[in-house]
């Protein structure tokens, strides 16, 4: 890969993602104050000791934001990885096996996709207890329906190729065909999809937290910080906008990188590069 060929937008995207990941990994060392430490008056303006001011309980907003990066990125990443494991495995099985397996899995997937994601999550979360792993699992299952759809479409194109036929005639088992024949050839579209799904997970988790159904306080996460500080808006205090901007920034950065990845793979295949 030539580094010169990487466009500026992709560099910006990668830099932004690197910054967010850096904050997430080294949160306890770089945050100036503790996550739940009350340091001063409520909604202090920016500047001075508290770079971004304080929140609705007088906690340092910058520290909350850095710790929030940890929670948000960890949960979104875990959900995306889980969604990919489930989605890719099931979709490839459907594509390779065909017949009733394919029909059954695809129809169940259609049914899941016919209920809007947020509505589905709200219904399910109304019943399930509020725990972190349940939240991750719910997001993962909902995201995996989208992964399933694209995974099946991509895998179907490849299962009809000669080398898969050859592997079948050789008598290879289904798992071999999935992991050694199909997976390596679908990596680049799946990688782009992974980025998109991660961005969606961040937005989705933040939305749920904003509605009070995601990460529970006092744990910091970006959507939750917006919820905590939303009453300040009426008094003209922009504290709620800062974590909102962080969510938007991370999602934009991921999208910039994905955009470049998609363009790159499109030109590799000689497809329509201008689409």
């Amino acid at each position: 890969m030539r580094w010169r060929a990487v466009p500026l937008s992709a560099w910006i995207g990668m830099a932004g993602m690197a910054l967010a990941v850096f904050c997430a990994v080294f949160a306890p060392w770089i945050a100036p104050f503790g996550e739940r430490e009350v340091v001063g008056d409520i909604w202090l303006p920016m500047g001075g000791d508290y770079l971004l001011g304080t929140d609705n309980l007088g906690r340092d907003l910058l520290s909350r934001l850095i710790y929030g990066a940890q929670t948000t990125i960890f949960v979104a990443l875990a959900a995306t990885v889980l969604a990919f494991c489930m989605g890719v495995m099931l979709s490839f099985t459907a594509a390779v096996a065909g017949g009733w397996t394919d029909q059954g899995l695809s129809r169940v997937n259609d049914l899941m996709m016919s209920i809007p994601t947020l509505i589905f999550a709200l219904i399910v979360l109304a019943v399930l207890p509020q725990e972190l792993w349940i939240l991750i699992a719910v997001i993962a299952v909902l995201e995996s329906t989208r992964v399933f759809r694209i995974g099946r479409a991509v895998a179907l194109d490849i299962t009809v190729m000669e080398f898969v036929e050859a592997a079948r005639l050789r008598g290879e088992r289904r798992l071999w065909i999935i992991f050694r024949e199909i997976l390596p050839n679908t990596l680049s579209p799946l990688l782009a999809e992974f980025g998109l799904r991660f961005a969606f997970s961040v937005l989705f988790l933040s939305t749920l937290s904003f509605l009070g159904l995601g990460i529970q306080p006092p744990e910091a996460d970006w959507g939750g910080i917006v919820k905590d500080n939303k009453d300040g808006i009426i008094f003209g205090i922009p504290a709620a906008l800062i974590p909102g901007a962080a969510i938007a920034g991370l999602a934009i950065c991921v999208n910039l990188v994905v955009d470049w990845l998609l363009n790159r793979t499109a030109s590799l295949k000689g497809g329509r590069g201008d689409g």
Partner: protein
Amino acid sequence: MTQQEGSPGPRIVDLEAMAAGPLGPPPGIGLAAPAAAGLAARPARTWSRFRHHMPLAALLIQRLALSVLLLLAVSVVIFLGIEALPGDFAQTYLGQSATPQAVANIRQELGLDQPAVSRYFEWLGGVVQGDFGNSWASGSSVANQIGLRLGNTLFLAFWAALISVPLAVSLGMLAVHFRNRWPDRLINVVSLGAISLPEFFVGYILILFFAVQGGWVTFPSTVYAGMSFGQRLEAIVLPCATLVLVVLAHMMRMTRAAILNVMSSPYVETAELKGLDTLRIIARHAAPNAVAPIITVVALNLAYLVVGVVVVEVVFVYPGMGQYMVDAVTVRDLPVVQACGLIFAAVYILLNMSADILAILANPRLRHPR
């Protein structure tokens, strides 16, 4: 929603009667009724003859039937799927220290001690008649509340759609017209940013600048009975603007992609080589073939609008369905959650179905599936 349908065997015929039931016969398919009379005798042959004579009507009936079936399946998921999940309302409601007797009492009071399947049919029977049961939290009728709020939500979504759809389609055409020049680049970058913005972020920015600092509009966008039409419109300016901004970018990008897809086909190249004016090519040659994908995009985004409404209503404290549902979820008021969930899903399915049907009407090639 472009999945391949299986061959329409006798199974579909049974559905036809169901499709005609709750939704009513679609316009222009008056012949369906006499055909339905002979169904009992030799369903498969009658259906195939009907299909041969009126392929379009048959296809539409099939779509309607499938949607009704899908809606039924969704209701099963919403009701029985929820039952299968761990978690007991009575236990959660009373807390960990509840005595078994108290838990049993509450379960009996809410009818939870009945078997789930019989409760499902009771619920479904009520839903068909417009009765969604009573809220667990307040004890009042869910249907009454929904009646008050559904109108508000549709009012908001309607205005957002009315503004965003024409704007998105014309911006998409503009982007294609100036392809790879600066207006296109600008639209591309701005829209890429815009699709990454969470709804609440856009909403609060608008509130901060237009309501708090500008003071041009009032912030809690409350509407109540007795408000005049103009006052209502004034109240929804900001929530409507938020929804438009959120949906616009997505819709526009997909419109652009759909038109570009058509623009790269040989007949457009021919038109270009003939020396026709670009705008004329877009309007007369490319657009008619791009209509079907654009309709799909628009319908998908309208469906998205219905969901986006949930967050926007919470941000603006707007008394609609979304706010009602979120409130119910936090107190685990299942009848309300199930009713709202079913209605949102129904609207979503309905929009997707109309997209499917409109796409078939717009593109004759889709009328004869191979």
